[in-house]
């Protein structure tokens, strides 16, 4: 229940918000000041002990507890019932090698990609359809933001200090998609990652950027996939011997591919063979060879030999999800920072029966 507007004290709220800015806690936008009663509701919603440690960065001597995650989630604007999703998203990120090492401090300034599956999407009101990469929906926006605030505050990684992103990227701390399972021809992503197909779960990885593929006029699955192969195989994102990627298909593209007999694995196999560039093309951009650490460097390549970008056709190296409206053939290629763990974490909404 929202109190009648006349009973509220906006001046006190403004002062509390300014206090949060002054402490250096904000990502730039206003925060919800967290209090004991509010945070206790978060802990109750997840039925987790506040003292439990859920992450640590030994090199910075910092840890994240459930309590700190709850405070940051509250400040991000989450509702208490979102907190189990925040915890599952955080745990899923802890399966990502880069998130355990120096990823949060990196010059690449990666953005978490969170993908939510299962009944929790409808229960909490996630957006899975139109504008799924954009703003407008509280769970999508605030759960992604909560992750950013945990990194900032619990890990103490602030921009220009321990965070050294050269440019960062649009969407950092704001990409949380619910998969459009209703319009998807394929099982849910969490199902592919080994969970029951009706599980509420979060999959997560880190992105370097997103790039759209707009193709509305071919009925050929091969032509459509070739358009993705061209975009995925661009040299700019290719910095090691191989590079991994992902695709968030719109329903129209996914359905066209499924109609032609393509499963997720089939799409990956087709693209793994065809995403890449010739050595000559790579020589033109100074990336035709690799040093002993596998970093792409200028060599003396002038052969027409085709170099594959993806290391193989495993899901870890080509994450495939389905989201967005069924109104146009517009999908998103996502650039992974490293690869994806290939796992999903179930959301335990402990008090579901009581609500």
């Amino acid at each position: 229940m929202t109190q009648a507007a006349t009973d509220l004290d906006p001046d006190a709220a403004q002062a509390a918000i300014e206090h949060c800015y002054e402490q250096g806690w904000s990502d730039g936008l206003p925060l919800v000041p967290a209090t004991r009663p509010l945070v206790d509701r978060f802990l109750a919603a997840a039925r987790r002990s506040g003292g439990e440690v859920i992450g640590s960065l030994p090199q910075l001597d910092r840890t994240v507890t459930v309590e700190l995650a709850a405070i940051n989630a509250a400040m991000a604007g989450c509702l208490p019932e979102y907190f189990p999703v925040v915890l599952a998203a955080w745990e899923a990120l802890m399966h990502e090698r880069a998130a355990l090492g120096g990823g949060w401090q990196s010059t690449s300034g990666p953005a978490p990609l969170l993908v939510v599956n299962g009944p929790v999407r409808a229960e909490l009101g996630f957006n899975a359809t139109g504008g799924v990469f954009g703003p407008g929906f509280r769970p999508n926006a605030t759960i992604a933001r909560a992750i950013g605030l945990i990194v900032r505050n619990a890990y103490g990684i602030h921009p220009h200090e321990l965070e050294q992103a050269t440019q960062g990227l649009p969407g950092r701390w704001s990409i949380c998609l619910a998969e459009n399972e209703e319009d998807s021809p394929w099982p849910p992503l969490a199902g592919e990652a080994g969970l029951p197909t009706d599980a509420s779960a979060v999959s997560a990885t880190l992105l370097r950027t997103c790039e759209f593929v707009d193709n509305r006029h071919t009925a050929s699955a091969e032509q459509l996939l070739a358009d993705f192969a061209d975009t995925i195989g661009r040299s700019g994102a290719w910095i090691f011997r191989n590079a991994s990627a992902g695709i968030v298909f719109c329903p129209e593209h996914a359905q066209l591919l499924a109609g032609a007999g393509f499963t997720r694995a089939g799409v990956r196999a087709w693209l793994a063979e065809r995403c890449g560039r010739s050595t000559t093309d790579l020589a033109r951009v100074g990336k035709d060879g690799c040093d002993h650490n596998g970093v792409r460097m200028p060599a003396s390549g002038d052969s027409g030999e085709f170099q594959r970008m993806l290391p193989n056709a495993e899901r870890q190296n080509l994450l495939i999800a389905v989201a967005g409206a069924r109104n146009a053939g517009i999908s998103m290629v996502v650039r992974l920072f490293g690869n994806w763990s290939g796992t999903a974490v179930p959301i335990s909404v402990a008090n579901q029966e009581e609500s």
Partner: protein
Amino acid sequence: MPNAILDPTGRAGVAAAPRPGLLLATRRPALSGLRVGLMDNTKHNAALLLHEIGKLLVAEHGLAAVTVEATKANFAAPAPAELIERYRQDCDVVITGVGDCGSCSASAVADGILFEQAGVPAAVICSDAFVVTADAMAELRGAAGYHYARTAHPVAVLTTEQVQQRAKQLLPEVVAILRGDSGGRPPGSAQSARQ
């Protein structure tokens, strides 16, 4: 009485308590005859730059030899204890770097401090584009003001000849850091160095 606003950092009160100044390894005013170790962090040109500095230390300052020349596998994390121990046993001074990215610059400074704590004077080399994060790590490790050698960014694009040139440019500061010359750093604590 309104409810208190909760602190999201877990550090309420922690920052207020000053950490004691970290004791650095005793400097080595006479470098002649000492064994030097080089620890690179996989960053492009790092191994070459350290190798060139090692050669110059032997040729121009009379160090005995480069006794350990190894690579730290994970540039983002501080060196594992076994690796630090290997240098402690076989070297009198260590050169490490190159701090040339977000996490590895901070980690290079953390490594320098680990060497210092093991009693081995260290000269850390960082790109000048990462001074803020390197300093932040020093402060985090209780060694605010820890002195390291800076070199102009970028390092990764340099040719072999340019790297050799950089090594020559860096040599006086590396020597000063290891000897504890003024302008280099302190025999004593990082804190005293700040003054």
